[in-house]
């Protein structure tokens, strides 16, 4: 299981400190605690999506309206975003994406492997800066720097949280 269970709380503190007001997500088991923290927070609007590309568009709209947002997904969702990322790069919208990785580390489901092994490269090809993290204690600072890059620079930045940190789940599906 997780080598540390506090990293979702670290991310949440960073998002609040960065004045993130809209958090859009397609759930992943690895993001469960963060999603719950966001849903319970009165300053953050948590928006469940039907597909990840909606979140890319949603957060462009949020920025037009003066709010910052963050997009949560698992690695399989990256492929769903590629064309919509044209909106981000053409208009130089900031975008902060936090991806929990599957298909990397003790994965039991081989269907997760194609996106899990390639989502970093695909994001780079689509014009996103990619910061992989494989140590739980570095996640908070990495998200903090990614947020600064994104919102000060008008850049699309993704943090890829390694499956080694999250733990390779079984079909038992732990709640967190």
């Amino acid at each position, binding site marked *: 299981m997780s080598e540390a269970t506090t990293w979702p709380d670290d991310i949440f503190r960073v998002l609040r400190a960065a004045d993130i*007001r*809209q958090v859009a997500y397609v759930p992943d088991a690895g993001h469960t605690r963060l999603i719950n923290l966001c849903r319970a927070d009165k300053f953050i*609007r948590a*928006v*469940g*999506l*039907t*597909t990840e*590309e*909606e*979140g*890319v*568009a*949603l*957060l*462009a*709209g*949020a*920025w*037009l*309206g*003066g*709010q910052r*947002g963050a997009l949560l997904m698992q690695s399989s969702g990256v492929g769903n975003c590629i*064309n*919509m990322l*044209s*909106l981000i790069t*053409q*208009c*130089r*919208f900031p975008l902060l994406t936090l991806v929990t990785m599957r298909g990397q580390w003790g994965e039991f489901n081989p269907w997760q492997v194609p996106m899990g092994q390639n989502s970093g490269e695909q994001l780079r090809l689509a014009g996103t800066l990619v910061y992989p993290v494989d140590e739980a204690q570095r996640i908070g600072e990495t998200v903090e720097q990614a947020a600064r890059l994104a919102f000060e620079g008008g850049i699309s930045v993704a943090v890829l949280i390694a499956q080694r940190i999250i733990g390779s789940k079984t079909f038992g599906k732990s709640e967190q």
Partner: protein
Amino acid sequence: MSESSESFGLRRRDIVAAILAKRGDALVIGGLGSAAWDITAAGDSPLNFPLWGAMGGTVAIALGLAIAQPGRRVLALSGDGDLLMGIGSLATVAVQAPGNLAIVALDNERYGETGMQETATASGVDLTGIARACGFPIVATIREEAEFAAALPRIRGAAGPCFFTIKVRAEKLPLVLPPKDGTELKQRFRRALLGAS
């Protein structure tokens, strides 16, 4: 199906011009292709955000904007092709239920920019029905001038989220192009709305 959309009575440029004639301080997202040209033909504004791409994203952009600006009317004007591509966004909007958002489907039952191929609405897929089933509190399908006149105040101001399908004639119209540079479109919008860069 029944009548071809080439003989529909309502014309998209008239409809959009009428909606935007008294827009007040409304914020307007125009879906890629014809809807973006329509809002520009009605009079370009820094508070228009016309899309040159991002197909399927119009509704989600409008939702993010509506959440960020709850005190302003947000109008998402788009075509049936764009709305079908992002059809799941209607579920997302219904759950978030922003009262200040109105979505107008300019439904000509065609992919207008690519050769007027039929969309699913030409075979009877009912966008209004989908919005209703998602839980939009105000929905209507409009085919006649009188229906449109009656709906206009609701498009501009009813507590929503609202979804209106307006059946418009399939026709090729002169292009009226907005600025193409995405950074310019974004920056002018934010300056006009927020006073920020």
